[in-house]
């Protein structure tokens, strides 16, 4: 048990960072360099895309989204995460992808986003982002990769990141949600899907499908036709969060107590 605790000797019990993740990332010049690279590359892509003319929306937008993910990946890698963090993250991603099987009797029911949000709440913002990005990437290995892959990775990553951030800030407790908190998290999850995740994925459709010279009209058609689907997705997220948030959070907490990951 001493060995387990020594893994987390840097962990400060008074901060709100997750007990399962050593989240003491210090900003160094390398991180600064990465941020500068992103801040230069993104506008450069936009400028080059504009100069090349009206034909490059798919590529330009996909590149911008890819650049937006670089800081998240870089900060995850620069922490050199321990075996346990990586495995817990992998387990949660695999549960997120495989959870569709448990609910196979309800077609169009997509619990993946909800499980990613729970992972974010339990493991913190950065790991939450990775959970979302990896789950989206893996589910596309099963279905098909395409221009939508970076968008899905970013959108689901953001779901994990936002809920992780709320938990890091202490807005959402990491275990034992009471009825009121459970309802609030579930409603928040559903709203996030309808207002943010769905919109990001529809924006991907706008860039890949719409005839751009038609402009705003075509985009509005796509957003409007995506809205009912996003509502269904939001409802599924609400139900999943309401039903499995507590069991999953408790299990993650239990693991951290049983094996002594940083719990004092």
């Amino acid at each position, binding site marked *: 048990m001493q060995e387990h605790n020594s893994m987390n000797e840097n962990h400060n019990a008074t901060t709100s960072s997750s007990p399962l993740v050593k989240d003491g990332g210090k900003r160094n010049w390398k991180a600064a360099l990465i941020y500068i690279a992103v801040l230069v590359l993104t506008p450069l892509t936009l400028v080059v895309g504009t100069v090349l003319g009206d034909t490059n929306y*798919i590529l330009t937008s996909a590149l911008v989204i890819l650049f937006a993910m670089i800081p998240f990946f870089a900060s995850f890698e620069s922490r050199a995460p321990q075996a346990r963090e990586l495995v817990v993250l992998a387990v949660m991603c695999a549960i997120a*992808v495989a959870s569709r099987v448990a609910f196979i009797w309800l077609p169009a029911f997509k619990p993946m986003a909800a499980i990613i949000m729970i992972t974010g709440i339990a493991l913190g913002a950065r790991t939450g982002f990775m959970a979302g990005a990896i789950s989206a990437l893996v589910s596309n290995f099963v279905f098909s990769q395409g221009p939508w892959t970076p968008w899905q990775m970013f959108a689901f990553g953001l779901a994990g990141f936002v809920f992780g951030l709320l938990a890091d800030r202490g807005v959402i407790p990491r275990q034992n949600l009471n009825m009121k908190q459970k309802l609030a998290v579930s409603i928040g999850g559903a709203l996030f899907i309808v207002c943010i995740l769905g919109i990001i994925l529809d924006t991907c459709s706008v860039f890949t499908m719409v005839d751009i010279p038609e402009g705003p009209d075509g985009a509005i058609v796509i957003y409007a036709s995506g809205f009912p689907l996003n509502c269904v997705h939001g409802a599924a997220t609400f139900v999943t969060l309401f039903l499995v948030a507590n069991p999953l959070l408790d299990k993650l907490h239990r693991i951290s107590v049983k094996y002594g990951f940083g719990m004092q």
Partner: protein
Amino acid sequence: MRKGDNFCTFHPAVTLGFFVIAIALAVLVRRPAFVAYGVAMAALYYLSVHGRAGFKMIAGLAVLSAVVTLVNPLVNVMGVTELFSVFGRPYTVEAVYYGASIAGMLACALLWFGGYNAVMTTDRFTYLFGAVVPAFSLVLTMVLRLVPNYQRKIKELSTARACVGMSTASGTRSERAAHGTALVSALASWALENGVVTADSMRSRGYGTGKRTSFAHYRFTARDGVFTVAMLVLLLLTIVALALGAGWVDFVPTFREGRTDFVFFAGLAASAALLALPTYVNVKEAISWRISTSSI
């Protein structure tokens, strides 16, 4: 290795480089001649990988392309050459051309992605990214292995629960939801416990003590070098031609194209040759295999 595909025996970096270039060209260059050759080369490669089964995908894409081409003028009223009017809106030649161009681009990109999915298997993907993003690619490898594992486990769990009358296949909606929740929850307990054991095993075998090595071992051989040089030379020629305006096209208000001189044909030939490289690799291998078996 897939039947009929020899390109997947090349170094992962070479194959990834080719697909990035091919998809970028498909999305960036919109002049009809380039799009037509691009689609043709992508389709040929797709067929060389998938054999006869590939025709199904190509037929589907042809239908999709036709729909996109013909529907585009309905929503898009730009252009001056009116063919006829639909509900008082003009149906123009330029919009048909533009629709065809978008359709060609989509078909081309999807065909290359089809080839990519066949060639860039997950082991090749993690081999390439293992050095740059080791933690990420390790998690990716683990998740890819765990997903089918968990799917089996869920089946086991639900079979066991069905024996005691707690099936997700029957009962009221709320009962079934409760059973579904219990399944996910049971899976999570088992998976997390197993995960910690795995992690401890990794630690005691020295995870994180040295540089990450890859399970699969790929060597950059002379053949990879030749392919890369050919690819880069043809890419350079294509870029020069495109920079000189060989790929320029405008759909509004009237359909206009760029130069039609030597530079245009050279650029077209270079890009077509570039995109034909993996098909050439596959066909050459098939032919030499035929010759070697017939001479026995």
